[in-house]
């Protein structure tokens, strides 16, 4: 499984309140959430993001609230993958459960700039920066995580497993 897209680069401690402000949490509709994704730190994000694009950010991405709406908003905005040196633990768990690919790779984050074009291979963990020609190695997902992401999240994964056993 591969993804290609341009980079939106942000700093450290991007929190769930800027990913999706709580004032919009009276809905759980992915499209409605995506319409406000990142707006408090980057009001152009929503108009500029295209399917496949990637967020590259500093440590502790997704800190704060347990709202699953945060990975949902990012995924529904078209983002294929978030790359950071580390993720806040609830966000990490929620992202996988929602089928949003995330990769931990400090070296890549340091060497990738806003607007760079990347190709990410989830099977090998290779992050290739097409703009600079540099290549980085992140830990590839274990098999079951790959399957969760391919199944569009934990629920899809569980349903698929159920079908297979029936």
């Amino acid at each position, binding site marked *: 499984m591969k993804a290609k897209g341009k980079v939106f680069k942000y700093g450290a401690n991007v929190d769930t*309140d800027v990913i999706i402000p*709580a004032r919009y949490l009276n809905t759980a509709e992915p499209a409605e959430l995506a319409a406000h994704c990142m707006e408090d730190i980057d009001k152009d994000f929503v108009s500029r993001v295209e399917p496949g694009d990637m967020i590259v950010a500093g440590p502790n991405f997704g800190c704060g609230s*347990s709202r699953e709406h945060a990975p949902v908003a990012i995924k529904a905005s078209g983002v294929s993958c978030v790359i950071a040196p580390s993720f806040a633990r609830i966000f990490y768990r929620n992202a996988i459960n929602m089928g949003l690919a995330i990769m931990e790779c400090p070296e890549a984050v340091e060497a990738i700039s806003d607007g760079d074009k990347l190709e990410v291979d989830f099977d090998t963990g290779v992050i290739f920066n097409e703009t600079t020609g540099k290549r980085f190695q992140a830990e590839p997902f274990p098999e079951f995580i790959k399957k969760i992401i391919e199944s569009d999240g934990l629920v899809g994964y569980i349903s698929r497993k159920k079908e297979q056993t029936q």
Partner: protein
Amino acid sequence: MSMTMTQKILAAHAGLDHVSAGQLIEAKLDLVLGNDVTTPPAIKVFEETGAADVFDKAKVALVPDHFTPNKDIKSAEHCARMRTFARRFDIENYYEQGEATFGIEHVVLPENGLVMPGYVIIGADSHTCTYGALGAFATGVGSTDLACAMVVGQTWFRVPEAINFKLVGKLNPGITGKDLILHIIGMIGVDGALYQSMEFTGDGVATLPMSDRLTICNMAIEAGGKNGIFPVDEITLDYLKNFAPERFDRGEYTVFAADEDAEYVRTIEVDLAKVPLTVAFPHLPENAREIGSFERVDIDQVVIGSCTNGRIEDMRLAAELLKGHKVSKGLRLIVIPGSQRVYRECLREGLIEVFVDAGAAVSARTCGPCLGGHMGILAAGERCVATTNRNFVGRMGHPKSEVYLAGVPVACASAVKGYIAGPAELDA
């Protein structure tokens, strides 16, 4: 093989003699929690799983506290969905605004006697870590985890490493547990305990009342912690006798203690006598500053309440400080007793009268302003001192507003002075 307190609780719930950091385990859950933001998406997932019932209707707690009293039609429909679900499955611990058992989730679950030492609790709310104050393992998860936990009564965890916070001495008069946790987050940063347990130990523990322990564990997540946890002692048992007498009498709890040779990734000694009055500046809880160390910051609003500081002890302290004073002209002071029980006690003790006389708006039980939901939203350029737990960009309203986190004494003094102040200035 030695274990931390958290590891012992997890091992017992996984049916294992021993667990070590990094191990993936499946653990049985004693309590599962959701609120009106996180439960509606969980209900959708619950239905998708095709489950016929929840695993145990006595072990699920659903608390509509975020956008209630219903903010708007969308919020009302979210709450209606939750209510319908609670009725359909006869959820015993579903509370409605105004009910004697109602309040902000992390205030009422301990008060209603649902949290016992040795329990494993997950909640689809990041501040679920509050319950570690009572010697339970409690951590926040997302809605999908909540849904699956409601179906099967168990979930998976990665066994965390731990930081040992060795507390020595005693807090100075006027310094609260809130100052201590802001001070600690200032020391280690908002990812200082990422994926780890924050285990509080040392002689200083015995000097901290339960209200402070709840405040401290509440904010473990603000340092990235998986959980915060206090050992079980006389103070814990006294709390249980008061708030969970039946479970206490039936002995429905287990006291776990860390092994003496438990391995910690690091030990941080905190001299409680050296903790100053602390304020966390925008826009991260780690931006801790000592009162008196910064220039005058004028403010527009003060919020006293939330799952961090909405307990009766906070209300008593606020009333004691505000008595005989008036809120600064042009400033809004919003006081939110955290539960009906707290509110009732405030009425009985005459505290509400003190708040109203000071010029405060006493609000309904809600998380509202803390998360920028409703009932106390800030305009662009406005500044608020809040006893809440987060000061991220836009947390309480406009992305150009600012939240300064503090304990009750600073909040009260600031409300009276109109700028960020310590309680010493109240008499000046």
